[in-house]
Every structure is written in structure tokens, then in C-alpha cells.
């Protein structure tokens, strides 16, 4: 039988990594991770502090070498074609990478010079980016006087001067106030929608991953513990249920008899029926109630939030079963 080496993919991949690992001495920071990120998508690497998120970004952006594994970034081999990788990527790190002694426009022009743009084009791009990030008024102010949100915007603007096809954002909103965070989210969305870039994002905020990412990978102790869309991840965790609210104690008793596995709350007059939140499961519950002529006052669908997914997946206990149990207890 003939094996086809190159599988047909709908879109070329911006990042592929196999068995990427990094250790300092005998301490493994990154313990063999695989990544496949299609072009034009937002990928979020989600994990608690110390999970290895920044290390991953540093390796993929050529800042530090991996101890093991292979990766192709923007179509180039990370090790042999580091120069070509650097030409295609933009990195906005966790700590602001702006020159504090220059003003905002000078910072952007510095980037333009380093990308070997001619003077005219450099000025044009710097001006356009200042407008886009609403920094024009502050353009001539020393960056040292900027607020955290403004610095982060300038930082990202500097990354965009070279029109990278792939952008790494290492915790882009950590330490920002909610308003600046939303502004940053808008900017990231527009990068993908308008400029068609691929975004590799790390975050410790579930909401951020949920809001922005097409695919999320959960990193814990240097290992990927789950990967998928936000919905797929939520579905991986048992703990979803349908909650029926009933008119009185007799209705509750009747309903509880129909669903032996359900948990009843006599004070709140509710019945939690474990199961997924799909339409067939919903219909089955309603049909069962109809056949027994039990009338429910209200029905709500409870899917586990990404928070629960996160806490479950990154639980410090070694057995995943124990983690799920504790989650179910929390859900009650």
C-alpha cells in the first residue's frame, strides 16, 4: 500500500511542532508538545503561571533553542532557517519591548528602519499605525510617560510595522484594566479579519481564549492536556445538566421518580438531570415529562464553563477521575 506523506490540508499551516521540549538541567519546562495551527486563525495557549507558555513562545520565535523536537514556523524550519522565520513573524512579549527614551513615533520609525523600509514608506506606516491605535496625539511624548494600555498598544504597533504573517502575543492583556483589555481584543480580532494574519496567543484568562481563539490548547506542567475549540473543550468535561424547576413538592417527587439519576433540591424545588446539552437529550427529557404528564415551570441548560474545564484539566491531583468528581461537587 502506498502511504501519502503529505496529507491534504485545507489551509497551509502557520505553525507545526512535534515533540517540542525544553529543560533546564533536569527540570523539564516543556515536555514534548505537538502543535498544528492553520494560517489565518487565532490559536490560544492557555495555562496557569509556570505552565510553559512563555517558553513555547520563546522557542517558536527563535529566542531560545528547544532541547528537543522539531518545528516549522511560517513555512520555514525553526532551526535551519531562523532568519526566514524572523522575517515572517512579529512578537509582542509579556514585558513591554519599547524604547523608553524614544517617543512613540520614533519607536515605530526605528522598526521601519530595521525592516529596511525606505523613509517615505516608513513614515507612512508609522503614521497609519499611530492613527489605527489612537496614539497620534501622544506620538511625540516620551514612552516613559505612557500608561500600561498605551504601551501595550505601541508594543503591538511596533510588531505590525514589518507586516508579519504570524504574530505571537504573550499574555497581551495581563495587567490591563478591563477597558484596555477590550480595546486589545478588538485590535486582535481586526488583525485576523482585516490583515489575515495568524495569531498565536498565550493567556491565563479563559474568557480571553473563549473570546478570541478558534482553537485552544491547555498547557499544564509543560504538557498539552487538552486541545480543541472552546465548545469542544467544554463538552469534554462531564458536569453539564438540565435543571427543571417545578411548581410544588408533589410535582418534584413525580419528576424525581422519572429520573433516578437526578439530584433533587427540595428547598429550591429543582431537579438537576445530568447529561449533555444537546437537542436530543433535551427532547428526551421533555418527552419523558410529557408522557408522565408532569409539568415543569422552567427548564435551564447548564453547560460547564471554560473555568471548570480549566480547573479540571489543570488540577494538581494526578487522577483525572478525582478532578471530575470534585468538579461535580462544585457544580452542585
Amino acid at each position, binding site marked *: 500500500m502506498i502511504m501519502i506523506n503529505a496529507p491534504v490540508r485545507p489551509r497551509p499551516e502557520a505553525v507545526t511542532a512535534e515533540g517540542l521540549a525544553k529543560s533546564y538541567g533536569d527540570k523539564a519546562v516543556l515536555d514534548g508538545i505537538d502543535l498544528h495551527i492553520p494560517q489565518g486563525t487565532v490559536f490560544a495557549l492557555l495555562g496557569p503561571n509556570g505552565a510553559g507558555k512563555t517558553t513555547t513562545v520563546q522557542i517558536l520565535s527563535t529566542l531560545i533553542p528547544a532541547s528537543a523536537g522539531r518545528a516549522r514556523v511560517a513555512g520555514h524550519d525553526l532551526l535551519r532557517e531562523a532568519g526566514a522565520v524572523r522575517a515572517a513573524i512579529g512578537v509582542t512579549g509579556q514585558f513591554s519591548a519599547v*524604547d523608553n527614551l524614544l517617543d512613540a513615533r520614533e519607536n515605530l520609525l526605528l522598526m521601519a*528602519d530595521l525592516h529596511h523600509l525606505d523613509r517615505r514608506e516608513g513614515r507612512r506606516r508609522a503614521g497609519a499605525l499611530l492613527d489605527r491605535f489612537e496614539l497620534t496625539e501622544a506620538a511625540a511624548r516620551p514612552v516613559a510617560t505612557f500608561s500600561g494600555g498605551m504601551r501595550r498598544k505601541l508594543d503591538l504597533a511596533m510588531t505590525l510595522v514589518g507586516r508579519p504573517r504570524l504574530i505571537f502575543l504573550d499574555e497581551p492583556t495581563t495587567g490591563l484594566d478591563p477597558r484596555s483589555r477590550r480595546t486589545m481584543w478588538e485590535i486582535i480580532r481586526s488583525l485576523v479579519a482585516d490583515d489575515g494574519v495568524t495569531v498565536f496567543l498565550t493567556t491565563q484568562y479563559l474568557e480571553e481564549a473563549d473570546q478570541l481563539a478558534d482553537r485552544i490548547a491547555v498547557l499544564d506542567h509543560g504538557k498539552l492536556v487538552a486541545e480543541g475549540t472552546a465548545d469542544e473543550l467544554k463538552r469534554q468535561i462531564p458536569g453539564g445538566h438540565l435543571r427543571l424547576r417545578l411548581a410544588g413538592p408533589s410535582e418534584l417527587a413525580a419528576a424525581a421518580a422519572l429520573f433516578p439519576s437526578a439530584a433533587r433540591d427540595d428547598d429550591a424545588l429543582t431537579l438537576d438531570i445530568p447529561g449533555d446539552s444537546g437537542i436530543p437529550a433535551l427532547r428526551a427529557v421533555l418527552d419523558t415529562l410529557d408522557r408522565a404528564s408532569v409539568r415543569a415551570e422552567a427548564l435551564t441548560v447548564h453547560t460547564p464553563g471554560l473555568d471548570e474545564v480549566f480547573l479540571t484539566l489543570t488540577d494538581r491531583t494526578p487522577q483525572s477521575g478525582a478532578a471530575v468528581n470534585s468538579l461535580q461537587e462544585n457544580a452542585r
Partner: protein
Amino acid sequence: MSTHAHALRDSMTMLRRNLTRARRYPSLTLQVVAMPIVMLLLFVFVFGGALGNGIGLPGAANDRGAYVDYVTPGIILMAVTSGAISTAVSVSLDMTEGIINRFRTMAISRASVLTGHVVGSVIQTMVSLVLVVAVALAVGFRPHATLAGWLAALGLLTLLAFALTWLAAAMGMVAKTVESASNAPMPLTFLPFLGSAVVTPDSMPAGLRWFAEYQPFTPVNETLRGLLLGTEIGNNGLIAVAWGVGLSLAGYLWARAAFRRGATR
């Protein structure tokens, strides 16, 4: 564009950046100029009379004018070492800021970051040398050098500035904090004192005299004195250039290795 053209262009960009930074943060530059000028005034007006007499300068019994001529070449060397401290500090400052990691992830010449720093610092040092010489002339320094002598002196000082600046850049790279970066080149600033800058080594005890005769600043100092004042140079010129080239190369290799090693701190 070829790789070399890129490297040159990137180095020029980095140089412009560093010169702008130096203008924005002038206190470091002022410190570089102030130290040797204060030393000059101190040695001429406070110690000058006694020292000039004490080391028995030819035809200079208690004559400050003769001592100004003796001490100025040494003070010029101190101005170069003072520049080295500012290099170490500015490199270290830069390394602690996030922008250096941005440069590392960009497709730019790796060497340009350090080259920009070093060339910028050498320019700063040379500007401060001009100021120091101007003050020396104002307080009575009377060189009688030919144009060729001045040019040779300029060349020698540029070489020394490159040597010390590369060494200081490496010290700034490996220093964990800005404070330790400013301390690291400190021994360099003392070396001229332990040579022929302030007094003749003949007046020192045997061990120290031996050190004074063989350490790099003495031949540089004697060559500079010869070029500006017409004293005997002998083989000091060759030794001075050898030290300059050797230290430049060592500093360059050290700085380059340190830059490649330390991706993040």
C-alpha cells in the same frame, strides 16, 4: 541588498538610536565628561605644585605649568576609561529592557545591536576627549605636536576607546544588574594611576613599579605624551598599538559570545 550592506544599515540604525538615547538621557554623558575634568583640576591646582616638584620634572621646580603638561595625557586616558563605565551602564540598561528581545526576534544583523552601542560610545568618548583637551588648554596645557602627531594621537585614542568600549560592552552584557555593570569597569579607571599618568613609576616601590611598567596604560600614556609633547616614545608606540588591537579583539569576542548566550534574563 547583501548581508554586509544589511549589517551596515542595521548598525547605522542602532547607532542613531543610541545617539538619540544619549541626547535624551544626558546625565550619563555629563558624568563621562565631568569625571576627567574634575580630576584634571584637582591634579593641577591641588596636587600640581607638590607633585611637579616631587617627581622632579626637568626644569619644573614647583611649576604648575610643567605638571599640566605631564598629567594631561594621563587625564585624557582617564576620560577614555570614564567612557567605558557609561558604555557598560547603557548596554546593561538596554539588556534589562524588553526591546532587546524584540531585536533578537527580528531579521536584523545580530552584531548590529552591539556595534551600534560601541560605535555610539566611542563617538561620545571622543567628544568628551575634545572637551577635556579644551579645558586642559585653558588651564595651561601647552602641547607642541605636529599635525601628524595630533592625528597619530587621535588614532591611538580611538583604538584605545574601541578596546575599552568593547570590553565594557561585554561587562554590561554579563552583568546581572545595572549597578554591577557600573562597578565592573571600575578597575580600568584606576589603572592609569598605577602607571605613568600622575607620577613617574620610578618613584614607586619595586613591586608596583614592575606592574606599572608592564600594564597596558603605561605604554599608551608614554606614546601619547611623546606624540603631544615630544618626549621619548621608543618601543612604547608598538606595544601600545599591540595592546589596543589585542584588547579590542578580546572585548569584541567576549561581547559577541555574551550576546549570543544570554537570550533572556
